[in-house]
């Protein structure tokens, strides 16, 4: 049999379809307390909402950008100072070089020292006029040392310009050379060092933005990854969850996170929603049961007419022939009355037993007996429509754990469904068969009718609530939906197999209770 639709039509599968997640039947109260426990548990966890996470992520990015901006604001004036200083250093170097040139000319060609002194003065004024700017780059000690050597050089020049004894001249020349050399060396070293520093700063300004960009990218990736992990995966989980609910699995959401956030709130709300849905489903199951009872009552009322007729006929016969009846015959008649009265009581009791509202109670049940009761309940309905119910229920079936009333209601629903399908059929037949492979986890109860069957395109929809093929006003379209609901509550699943014109088979798979040896 090909399977192009959602519902698999293959026969007797060993496992339930995966999306129809099965959970062990749990007592309603137990389940409620379990969820309540989870609810309070999650409420006690520390709250770290997604909103806060987002705020923190954006704040981090902002702080980083602000830091970068501040750094730029801080670095640019420094560069400016360095450039200014380099200008000064160049001017100073120029002056000292000129100074030295004139000094050299004086010693070599005997020229005057005025120009040398002028340049010395200029160099000194450069240092003194721009003291503030220079100090931004250079330490005061160094400046003082430079100024000192410049002053000594100037003093030497002055001395040279004053006295002209050759010893003095040689001694001064020697001193001038020393100071002059130091001065130019200082100026050179100084400007080179600063130029290098400036080059470094420039290269930093060039590569800096790239590094900052890279760091920003890492931060953004981290934030995105975090958001993805926290939000997208959480949403995905919730989506899976809603799909599960749609498939009829009402397992509550469990909380994996250690901290609370908006998603845990949403999950809590969804769990509450499931509680509500389950409550509604319960009401639906109950109200559908009442409808089923309404159907059965009509049949039972008719069915009662037979024993009542027997009682009436017997009683009247007894009344009419009281005087002439041999005692043995009278006794037999009385026994008939008793028997038929008991039969009537049994008919009513079976229905009453089914109708009575009881607390859910999962018990070990004899599947054969439950099926027998359900068949008994619909038998008068079936008789009215002249439908034969054939059963093939093997003895020693594995026990099932279930709620008695729910299980009977499930079978009654399916049987009434079959009876309805056969209402137009002259030779209606319903076969109830139970298949219980010794090692299988499920016992399969099949209810087969030889009615008109269900077209392939409708087979997917028959379990949908409010879907009905009956004319308006007849049937609520909830029978099969409620049945599926019950089966899921019992931890089983259902299959339908049908061919138009040949009837339909509804197979219920119920989990078998295994007794450990």
């Amino acid at each position, binding site marked *: 049999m090909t399977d192009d639709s959602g519902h698999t039509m293959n026969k007797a599968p060993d496992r339930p379809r995966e999306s129809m997640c099965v959970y062990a039947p749990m007592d309603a109260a137990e389940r409620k307390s379990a969820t309540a426990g989870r609810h309070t548990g999650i409420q006690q966890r520390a709250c770290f909402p997604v909103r806060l996470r987002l705020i923190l992520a954006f704040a981090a990015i902002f702080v980083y950008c602000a830091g970068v901006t501040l750094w730029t604001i801080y670095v640019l004036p420094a560069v400016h100072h360095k450039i200014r200083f380099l200008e000064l250093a160049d001017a100073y170097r120029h002056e000292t070089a000129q100074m030295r040139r004139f000094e050299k000319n004086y010693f070599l060609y005997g020229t005057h020292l005025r120009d040398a002194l002028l340049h010395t003065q200029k160099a000194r004024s450069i240092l003194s006029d721009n003291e503030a700017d220079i100090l931004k780059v250079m330490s005061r000690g160094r400046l003082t040392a430079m100024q000192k050597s410049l002053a000594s050089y100037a003093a030497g020049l002055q001395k040279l310009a004053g006295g002209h004894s050759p010893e003095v001249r040689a001694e001064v020349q020697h001193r001038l050379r020393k100071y002059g050399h130091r001065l130019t060396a200082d100026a050179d070293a100084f400007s080179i060092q600063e130029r290098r520093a400036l080059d470094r700063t420039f290269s930093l300004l060039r590569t800096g933005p790239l590094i900052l960009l890279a760091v920003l990218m890492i931060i953004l990736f981290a934030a995105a990854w975090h958001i993805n992990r926290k939000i997208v995966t959480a949403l995905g989980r919730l989506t899976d969850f809603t799909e599960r609910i749609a498939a009829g699995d009402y397992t509550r959401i469990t909380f994996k996170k250690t901290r609370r956030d908006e998603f845990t709130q949403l999950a809590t709300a969804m769990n509450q929603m499931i509680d509500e849905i389950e409550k509604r489903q319960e009401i639906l199951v109950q109200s559908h049961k009442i409808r089923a009872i309404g159907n059965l009552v009509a049949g039972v009322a*008719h069915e009662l007419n037979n024993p009542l007729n027997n*009682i009436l006929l017997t009683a*009247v016969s007894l009344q009419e022939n009281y005087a002439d009846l041999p005692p043995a015959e009278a006794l037999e008649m009385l026994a008939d009355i008793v028997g038929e009265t008991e039969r009537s009581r049994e008919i009513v009791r079976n229905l009453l037993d089914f109708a009575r509202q009881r607390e859910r109670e999962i018990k070990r049940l004899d599947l054969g007996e439950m099926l027998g009761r359900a068949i008994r309940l619909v038998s008068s309905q079936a008789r009215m429509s002249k439908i034969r119910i054939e059963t093939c229920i093997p003895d020693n079936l594995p026990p099932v754990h279930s709620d008695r009333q729910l299980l009977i209601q499930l079978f009654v629903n399916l049987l009434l469904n079959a009876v309805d399908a056969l209402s137009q059929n002259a030779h209606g037949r319903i076969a109830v068969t139970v298949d219980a492979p010794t090692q299988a986890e499920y016992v399969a109860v099949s209810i087969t009718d030889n009615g008109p069957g269900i077209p392939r395109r409708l087979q997917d929809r028959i379990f949908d609530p409010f879907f009905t093929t009956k004319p308006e006003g007849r049937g609520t379209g909830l029978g099969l939906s409620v049945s599926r609901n019950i089966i899921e509550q019992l931890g089983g699943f259902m299959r339908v197999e049908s061919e138009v014109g040949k009837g339909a088979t509804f197979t219920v798979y119920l989990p078998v209770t295994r007794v450990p040896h």
Partner: protein
Amino acid sequence: MNQKLKIMVVDDEAIVGKRLKPSLESSGYTVETFGDGRSAIARLSKERFDIVITDVRMDDVDGMQILEYVRANIPQTKVIIITGYASVDLARRALDKGAFDFIAKPFKPGDLRTVIEKAARAPSA
């Protein structure tokens, strides 16, 4: 009535036949009872009955089939339907097929006797 009326009672409820037989016999009728439709029809094919009283819902051959058989083969025999599943629909169906009367269960033997007398008087269709 020169001759005793022959009546057949068919009902899968054994007590019906058991009680109706003496009750009707005491009124001067010959009564045979059957618990299923098949043997009733077998008997009808051999023996002529004036009135057939039959239940409707029976396994295998039901009262409607007996009615059809009688109307098709022995139209002078009158058929009285007795049923616990009486409804307007079923009554009309039975009458449409030619039943003489339709009685809902439970009934008293007296009620049936009245109908039988009426059937005995009525001209055969």
